[in-house]
């Protein structure tokens, strides 16, 4: 009996949260054919849609713990070519948040998430992205490929592409309020 309940629940839960009706997908595979990273993903986009359609908890967990949802570049090629205009990018945004909330993040996606976190920390503190700070913070978080981008530093300085100091928004209180009302509210 539980299985029947689940079958109904996950797709309608997704529709309620994102407005996307996963049953619209008839598995033509155009999204996967056009996805530039399909071959690097645990499951390509059309598989993700199929997993969401079954409504099974185990399939939903597969989706939330896949690297696919983090690899997705939101290039929007899939929805551009979908004959039913299933908004996969909107689903992906939602699934990423679900995956963090349910603590099912794929270990393969750690670097990508660390980058997003460094990015948002920079914006939270200054209101604008400070690229030099972002890269330094990210490297410290992940300790990966430390030298690859460090080699770029002198070349970027020479070309005037790197500032020594961040640009700062005057109304920083407003920026921290925005963070407190949105992303940080959930984490508290």
């Amino acid at each position, binding site marked *: 009996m539980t299985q029947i309940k689940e079958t109904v629940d996950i797709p309608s839960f997704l529709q309620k949260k994102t407005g996307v009706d996963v049953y619209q997908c008839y598995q033509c595979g155009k999204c996967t054919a056009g996805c530039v990273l399909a071959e690097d993903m645990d499951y390509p986009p059309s598989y993700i849609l199929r997993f969401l359609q079954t409504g099974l908890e185990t399939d939903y967990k597969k989706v939330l713990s896949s690297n696919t949802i*983090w690899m997705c570049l939101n290039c929007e090629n899939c929805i551009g070519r979908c004959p039913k205009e299933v908004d996969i990018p909107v689903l992906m945004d939602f699934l990423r948040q679900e995956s963090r909330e349910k603590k099912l993040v794929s270990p393969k996606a750690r670097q990508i998430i660390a980058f997003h976190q460094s990015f948002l920390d920079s*914006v939270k503190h200054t209101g604008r992205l*400070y690229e030099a700070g972002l890269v330094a913070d990210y490297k410290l978080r992940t300790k990966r490929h430390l030298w690859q981008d460090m080699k770029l530093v002198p070349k970027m300085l020479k070309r005037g592409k790197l500032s020594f100091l961040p*640009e700062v928004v005057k109304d920083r209180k407003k920026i921290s309020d925005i963070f407190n009302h949105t992303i940080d509210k959930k984490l508290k």
Partner: protein
Amino acid sequence: MEIGFYPGCSLKGTSREYNESVLALAKAFGIEIKEIEDWNCCGATAAHSMDRKLSLALPARVLALAEKQGFHEIVVPCASCYNRLAVTQYKLSEDAGLKKDITDSIKMPCSGKVKILNVIQFLDSYIKDKIQKRTVHPFKYDVACYYGCLLVRPHQILQFDRTEDPQSMDELMRMVGANAIEWGYKTECCGAGLSVSRTDLVAKLSGNIVKDAEDRGAKAIIVACPMCHSNLDMRRPQIDEYLREKTTIPVLYITQAIGLAIGLSPEELGLKRHFVETSSIY
């Protein structure tokens, strides 16, 4: 009337030459543009990957500031910022509850009436009709116009050009004397925000783009997005390593190519700031 200008973070840092060339063109054509005061980051990929409300609130504050400062129209040269701002405006106009929620979090009204122009729409509206008359050094090269993702998609919201074979940049480049070639990667993704965290994937995706443009004889790739530019230009060593060949095709912002055609100097247009040598085209 003055047009508001939202440069975004890239144009103040790694893509300084895009900023310089947009402003140089505006000056050359006598268009008044003024930076929106106290603007903040749009949140880019990081915000919408991590938190939906944050990804709408950050652009909403920019739109609200533009309104408060009396701008009816703003130009947003970065394709990623343009996309975030346009999507936010659309989502808030669709859903009154969401709009209230977001304007509450930014504590500012946001009517959503500001017209948002990407760089091509800006050039089309203010420069296109004068461009041929002003061209003194025709840009006589075969060029591959690379639109990427965020200028043309999602079409349902942006309603700008065709998603598969867009033409707006090709048309502008033809007007300054270039031959815009047919090629296969006009709107394929360069890898965008994975540039730092998954450089290996960016090398592959951007490598395919550079290779196709070069193989088809283009002398330059023309772009309108700072992320496309950094991936195709600054990541060239990784691209060449992936392709196992040395590629030399330079990557120019469309504003730089038009600037050269109307007689502006490579220095004014920031062409010396690139990683891949650009002197083959001037």
